[in-house]
């Protein structure tokens, strides 16, 4: 009779793992990736490929050099690379894509201890690093269907006081200037529905984030169309659905996630209307990332029959 295995309970585990979660995020980003290729051509596909490859290779090399367990298998580096690529305009130089991805993975994630230990979202911070370092990352590129070359995103145009904007239908399907993955609202919402159905994210964060921006824009502009442009323009949807729902850098409890989303919405509107940048989604998420531990503490639930957490 062979020896029995002894361990403490439980003896049963869910089959959801970090890898399946990250795989679901990649699947949810497929429609947006496909849309980016449709609207911005093969250049977009090339950028996606380069960003994902450099993110994965950077993490693999980091683990080898630092003699840490190999973690690229959990697919989180691929998610970071893909998200970063989708947040860049098509005119970004390919070497800049490599630098941005490596910065996101090495500086923002690995140096803080790897997956689960970074305090800021790697893709967002990588994008902000590139925005500040390389002029080309600011603004957007025109889609392959554009008849005139403007290079301006709708939000930049609104900020500059221009009135020649793409139609709302074009905004919805993604035929407008911007970062390659942020323009097609329909593709992003498909991803959102998939993630909620797969229980990877809760619906609250994206809905509250986008809702706050919509309501505040409505209050400020007193105009429904203008508010809709604020919702569909810029990186709001991709940010709210894929970046503000990052596990590692947001509060762990559901109430905290709601407060986080509300804060993101308010800061986005402040930057868009009164800041010097036309777009504020990245900055708002980064700022709220920093506040996350405090929000988490304030929003901790009272245990059943216990005292309010001290």
């Amino acid at each position, binding site marked *: *009779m*062979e020896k*029995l*295995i*002894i*361990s*403490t*309970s*439980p*003896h*049963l*585990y*869910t089959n*959801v*793992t*970090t890898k*399946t*979660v990250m795989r679901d995020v990649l699947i949810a980003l497929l429609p947006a990736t496909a849309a980016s290729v449709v609207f911005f051509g093969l250049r977009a596909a090339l950028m996606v490929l380069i960003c994902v490859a450099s993110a994965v290779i950077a993490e693999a090399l980091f683990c080898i050099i630092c003699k840490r367990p190999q*973690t690229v298998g*959990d697919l*989180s580096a691929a998610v970071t690379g893909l998200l970063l690529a989708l947040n860049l305009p098509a005119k970004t130089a390919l070497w800049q894509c490599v630098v941005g991805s490596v910065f996101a993975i090495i500086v923002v994630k690995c140096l803080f201890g*790897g*997956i*689960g*230990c970074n305090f800021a979202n790697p893709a967002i911070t990588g994008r902000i690093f590139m925005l500040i370092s390389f002029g080309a990352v600011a603004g957007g590129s025109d889609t392959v269907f554009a008849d005139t070359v403007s290079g301006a995103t709708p939000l930049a145009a609104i900020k500059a006081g221009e009135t020649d904007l793409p139609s709302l239908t074009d905004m919805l399907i993604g035929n407008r200037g911007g970062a390659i993955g942020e323009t097609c609202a329909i593709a992003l919402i498909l991803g959102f529905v998939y993630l909620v159905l797969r229980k990877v994210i809760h619906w609250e964060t994206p809905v509250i984030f986008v809702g706050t921006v919509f309501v505040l824009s409505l209050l400020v502009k007193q105009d429904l169309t203008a508010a809709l442009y604020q919702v569909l323009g810029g990186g709001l949807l991709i940010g709210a659905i894929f970046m503000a729902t990052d*596990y*590692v*850098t*947001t*509060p*762990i*409890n*559901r109430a905290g*996630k709601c407060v986080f989303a509300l804060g993101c919405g308010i800061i986005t509107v402040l930057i868009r209307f009164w800041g010097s940048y036309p777009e504020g989604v990245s900055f708002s998420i980064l700022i709220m990332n920093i506040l996350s531990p405090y929000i988490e503490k304030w929003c*901790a*639930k*009272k*245990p*059943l*029959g*216990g*005292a309010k*957490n*001290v």
Partner: protein
Amino acid sequence: MFGFKFLGNTPVPHRKNTAAMPAVRLPVHKEVLLHVAQHIGAPAKVVVKVGDEVKVGTLIAEAGGAVSAPVHSSVSGKVTKIEKLMCYNGQQVDAVRIESDGLMTADESITPPDIHDLDSLIEAVRASGAVGLGGAGFPTAVKLAAAKNGNIKTVVINGAECEPYITSDTRTMLDDTDSVVYGVKLLLDNMPTVEQIIFGIESNKRECINKLSEAFKDNAKVKVKALPALYPQGSEKVIVHNTTGIAVPTGKLPAECGVIVLNVSTLAFIARYAKTGMPLVERTLTVDGSAIAEPKNVTVPVGTPISYVIEAAGGIKDGKSLGKVLYGGPMMGVCVCTVDDPVLKTTNAITALDVKDSNPPAETACIHCGRCVAACPHSLNPTEFARALNVEIKEDRMAKLQATQVLSCMECGCCSFVCPAHRPLIQNNRIAKAELKDYLAHQATLKN
């Protein structure tokens, strides 16, 4: 519906393969092994010696303290050995080996007890050796004694049976409904302060809910409540909350809030004891798990070797090999070291898992996803315990652990079950609880 949110939201698979199988009474094994610690509290004290003739129901160990329970012989035959053995909780205690003569002659002294008021009910339950048959094994008489101060208004009968595989309570409710009904009558007749008796049953046991609702349809004091079929409905504080809306404060017992919780099989046993006077000497249990060839429910004398009940369930499935054998179900079950260990009073199931299902998956880094926080029925944050445990200075560590309220954790295992990184969350909780309890006890002695 009840004005509050149901606690418990973890979709643990049910796997109630044996729900439609009434328990089969197995032929008596040639030998039984009776540990004197089959309950929470002080081990019982052996009162027989090697060579003694015993019959079914003969007292072989008397209660070893206020919180304890006597143990009775489960077969007729001869005591062959009394030895120190490790019992399920790691304690070294006496164990009595009895060789069966196969006749199952009942002890002549056995007569139905006289139960006419609360004191006589408690006394009878104490003498019967009854312990919580849901698995925890808290001496039932001690629980009922709480009713003496007159504040017990509600008795919750726990028929949730939320663990995967286990259907022994289901079968008790369906096959021994008369005992359940008589047990309720005993409680209502002898506990005058009790205003209501609430059955809590998971909604996947529709048949049990219907049968009991029908049986109690004329009794306004008895309610049968369907609970969501989500783990851990059967946990004591969860079922109290989900049936009555009362949140039992940390460190207190439900009795201090006017509620007693009894497992439905315990209730049925008390009723059978009241009718026959035969102490707790047999056990109905489910034998299932990925390694079992023919899962079934069986009734055996307490002390029957696990290997014997596994053989009775068709043995090990072809192509599988035994990896883990558990007392209870896979969520809270305790591993046995060998299949020679006996069935205990508290053994509601023997779960035998294939080697493939036995090794815990490799752990990876916490990704802060919050699944454990969302799953915890007590609204704790399991990630905090690990962080608090890592604090270097003992005083700081204890202060941090106290702030996390880790002592509220009842180790249901939801956090570890849902964790996509397979963190040893509940293992951390156990270490944290043990260290904090020790520390608090030490502080208390320093004060005195």
